[in-house]
């Protein structure tokens, strides 16, 4: 299904990260080893404090590992960040209230020094991609929460990064909006062929979206199971009633439970 002979896009070997807090050191990541190939959709799932967000932030060079190695596109995370290798979508849309939707999407392009004409073309392209074409001139407060999050995805897509890192992007949205956004995200992934790292709390969301599911558990944050999904890339919403889907969901649930039994 995938070309696994090429070098992985993201490769972590024996990654450890310890935060020093007032209550002593917190082992946020312990011995995390993971390869992500080009074009994969990888979900990180686990309870709070399992290090899934921390791992995503290490990839993005927002946190520094204490030990171990990690490469992104064959570079250090810092070099990858400076080479604009990834777009990052946060839990909250975090749109600037003083910019229109188009202005918000334009923000990274302005910072990265794209030409005015190029900026305009790219904004139109990505807004069309997230189905917000008619809302370019609206301000964020005029949009619903789901639309705002779509705009923030457009912002992360505007400059051609191969990797899209998403930290619980739909966590604050209701289930109905979430289903629709999941569907749109899959379509977008199919069109853009990006490598996606996706942090979530939701088992159905992880199973529905991913080609690879990384189950993590807390104290210390570590990987307890890596599941390569046998589901086809083309996934209608009702695939969630299929036996394969239920079986993977079951395995994820077992993995999460096993992590908790260790406490």
């Amino acid at each position, binding site marked *: 299904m995938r070309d696994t002979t090429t070098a992985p896009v993201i490769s972590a070997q024996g990654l450890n990260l310890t935060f020093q807090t007032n209550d002593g050191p917190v082992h946020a990541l312990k011995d995390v080893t993971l390869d992500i190939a080009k074009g994969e959709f990888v979900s990180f799932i686990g309870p709070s404090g399992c290090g899934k967000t921390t791992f995503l932030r290490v990839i993005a060079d927002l946190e520094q590992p204490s030990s171990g190695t990690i490469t992104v596109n064959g570079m250090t995370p810092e070099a990858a960040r400076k080479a604009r290798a990834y777009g*990052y979508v946060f839990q909250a849309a975090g749109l600037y*209230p003083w910019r229109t939707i188009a202005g918000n999407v334009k923000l990274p392009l302005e910072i990265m020094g794209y030409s005015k004409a190029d900026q305009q073309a790219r904004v139109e392209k990505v807004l069309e991609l997230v189905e917000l074409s008619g809302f370019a001139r609206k301000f964020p407060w005029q949009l619903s929460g789901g639309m705002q999050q779509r705009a923030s995805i457009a912002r992360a897509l505007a400059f051609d990064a191969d990797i899209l890192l998403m930290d619980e992007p739909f966590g604050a949205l209701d289930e109905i909006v979430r289903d629709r956004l999941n569907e749109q995200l899959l379509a977008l992934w199919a069109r853009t062929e990006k490598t996606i790292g996706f942090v979530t709390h939701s088992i159905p969301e992880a199973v529905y979206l991913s080609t690879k599911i990384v189950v993590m558990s807390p104290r210390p944050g570590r990987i307890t199971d890596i599941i390569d999904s046998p589901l086809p890339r083309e996934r209608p919403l009702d695939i969630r009633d299929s036996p394969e889907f239920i079986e993977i969901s079951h395995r994820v649930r077992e993995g999460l439970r096993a992590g908790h039994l260790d406490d």
Partner: protein
Amino acid sequence: MRNLFPVLIVTAFLIALWYAAVIPMNAQWAQDQARRAGQDLSFSALVADTMRQQRPRLPAPHQVAGELWNSTVVEEMTGRRGWWNTGSLSNRSLIYHGWVTLSATLLGFAIGSALGIALAVGIVHNRAMDASVMPWAIASQTIPILAIAPMIIVVLNAVGVTGLIPKAIISTYLSFFPVVVGMVKGLRAPDQMQLDLMKTYSATGGQVFAKLRWPSAMPYLFASLKVAIAAALVGAIVAELPTGAVAGLGARLLSGSYYGQTVQIWSALFAAAILAASMVAIIGLIQRVTLRRMGMAA
């Protein structure tokens, strides 16, 4: 217009209270005068007299309003030294004195705001300034301005700086502080997520400032500018008091108190209040226009 009604009610109430206070405050003098003349004052005559004394303890509202009118429009349009007859403002008019104070206020406000913004930018971006500047800024405001104003004026006078500049410096002294405090808060308003987002773009410090910190600070800036301009006016007036200044609202207050001209004092006070309110209103207007254009309805 809907919120005009309560404002008018409160204003009417205050004016009524003022009139009520005028009678007991000025009654003593009216009765003394009547006794000296061997007359007996009826209550209505007493009330009428308290409202029209030359040098009342507390002038009545209509006396202050009349003085304001006479020393502005009437003086400039019909006075011998007025603008209508001479082409320049009369030194007996509140417009002239108001302008003298206003020019120092505006200069001091401009310098103070620029200084305040510059200090805030330094505090937010430089660790050493963050640790060192704020305590000094706070300490500077604990010194009574009345104590330090004469010294500033005397010292500047000694080095040959007179006129507008010393007053503007005292305005600056009072007006930079709210701007520093407000802008430090405003420039730090962006949360960690927004700063992280900038980092994922590998944005430079200058870009983070221009595209994130500065726009985030706008609402804070306008709030502190409103405080600052009122403080700048107080500074300019205070600066006119200890120097024997011959022009300015402060000078009017001072000469009024020398000669017991209470009506003059009160009209100068009201001129200052009207000036302050107008300047705050102008900043409020700029704020509304700016924030609306930024999509932040305020």
